[in-house]
């Protein structure tokens, strides 16, 4: 770099640029938060959904599955599993784990109560009704 571009100029551009783009990001965040109520399905955020989210979290479901594409890539996407499988299948499947099929990937049995199963299904239903810009591309997730 030539002698006309000094370190202090570089430093000023760094601080100026960072502050500018951080403020722009905050502005976009503010706008997103205004728009979210139309997309994030919050009208249906019932106590059962909240309880289901907690069941999801304290059993570390994200350690194997993805949820709207985020998580681990070891087991199927569950953001749309409610639409793919329906509530009864989901409950029966969770209760039937582990399959014990030799060599197959195994899901632990989390000993969920009927109440917890229902809450979890409500949570997965909620997730499937978020406006995700048509993601995933098809029902297989």
């Amino acid at each position: 770099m030539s002698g006309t571009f000094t370190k202090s100029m570089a430093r000023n551009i760094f601080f100026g640029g960072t502050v500018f783009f951080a403020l722009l990001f905050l502005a976009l965040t503010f706008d997103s938060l205004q728009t979210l109520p139309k997309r994030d399905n919050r009208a249906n955020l019932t106590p059962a959904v909240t309880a289901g989210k907690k069941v999801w979290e304290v059993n570390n479901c994200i350690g194997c599955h993805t949820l709207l594409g985020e998580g681990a890539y070891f087991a199927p996407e569950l953001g749309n599993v409610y639409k793919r499988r329906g509530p009864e299948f989901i409950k029966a499947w969770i209760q039937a784990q582990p399959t014990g099929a030799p060599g197959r990937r195994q899901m632990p049995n989390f000993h969920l109560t009927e109440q917890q199963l229902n809450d979890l299904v409500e949570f997965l239903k909620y997730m499937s009704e978020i406006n995700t810009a048509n993601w995933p591309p098809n029902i297989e997730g």
Partner: protein
Amino acid sequence: MQYSSQAVAKPYFIAAIGLFTGQVLFGLIMGLQYIIGDFLFPAIPFNVARMVHTNLLIVWLLFGFMGAAYYMIPEETETELYSPKLALLMFWIFLVAGAATILGYLLVPYATLAQMTGNDILETMGREFLEQPLLTKIGIVVVALAFLFNLSMTMLKGRKTSIAIVLMLGLWGLAIFFLFSFYNPHNPVLDKYFWWWVVHLWVEGVWELILGSLLAFVLIKVTGVDREVIEKWLYVIITLTLVTGIIGTGHHYFWIGTPEYWQWWGSVFSALEPIPFFAMTVFAFNMVNRRRREHPNKAATLWALGTGVMSFLGAGVWGFLHTLAPVNYYTHGTQITAAHGHMAFYGAYAMVVLCIISYAMPILRGRAANSEKSQVLEMWAFWLMTVAMVFITLFLTAAGILQVWLQRYSATPIPFMAAQDQLTIFYWLREGSGVMFLIGLLVYIASFFVGGEPRKAAA
């Protein structure tokens, strides 16, 4: 070593390498579980192994960053560390808390662990990478605050170089953005939105400041190039990083319920994110070519060049590969993401920590550089681990492309598990590459125990 208090860096570096080894071992377990699904089940279910794998990564990198800062700040500020005792106390607290957390993951069902550690008081657990119990999260904050206090007090009484300022900015940013891990709203979209303020603003934001300053520090030392030149480059690189990376957060806001304009903001800005990594590679090679001294530590120079190249490939090229919204629509949450994650973390963060360790550890052990024999072994380790990581990334990419085709793109999409069955060959190849990585790591560890005549600084 110029300042005796720099010695506190040593236990941090040793712990980092130890935890890194644990991370790799659990990676191999998971790699095998991808093929032999019931391997170690139910003793270590996949989700537990993954939690251990990713949390060990974060913790060993934090140990590495802290060790680096304790080593660099006294030398940069030209004064002794404010309190070496506090630094050592924090080392033991962090190590014990970290080990206890990992044992908790392994020995107690996660739901029980959550109940035992106060998750009902403030629900923060069960989110990817932020699985730590509340107590551990609070412990991380306490250790980080004590660490930042110690270093900031050292800064106040000494010389304030740009490298030190950038490092401190990165470390303060790391601590501040971690606070978002305590915010877990019931609304899943909001939860995801602000979860990225920890994860993205760490690895594609403030951590890159730490990366840049560590690299700049080592380059000054091994090349002898004028500080003014190197620090100017550092500012240019981190400007590019944050100008692209902050709005680049938008590439995570494509499909999680957020407004669709993020597809534009995220695509455009994150498409620019490779530029700072490219600049970093050019910078590293340029400085080494313009070197004004022949530093006896060749291995450290190799790591410095390597981290430039590999972070550009892993974070830059493999990031770009799937960052445009129309591509990401198909690749989001597949093995493509895993491929990118592996090479980016290794290239940018694992390698820069190994670089500073390579430079500082011989000095902490009382010599300018290790013996020829030890350095040759360390360079073998560099190539084994780096080539292994290239292969891991290539095989996961191949698996990802096939997965996308079978499950998402073809006219007749098949279910997730049916697609996984078709990827087995690539998972075997990945596991083989993982074994090669482990061999490289063992060679690396062995290089610390090789004696011989230390290389002297050239006249």
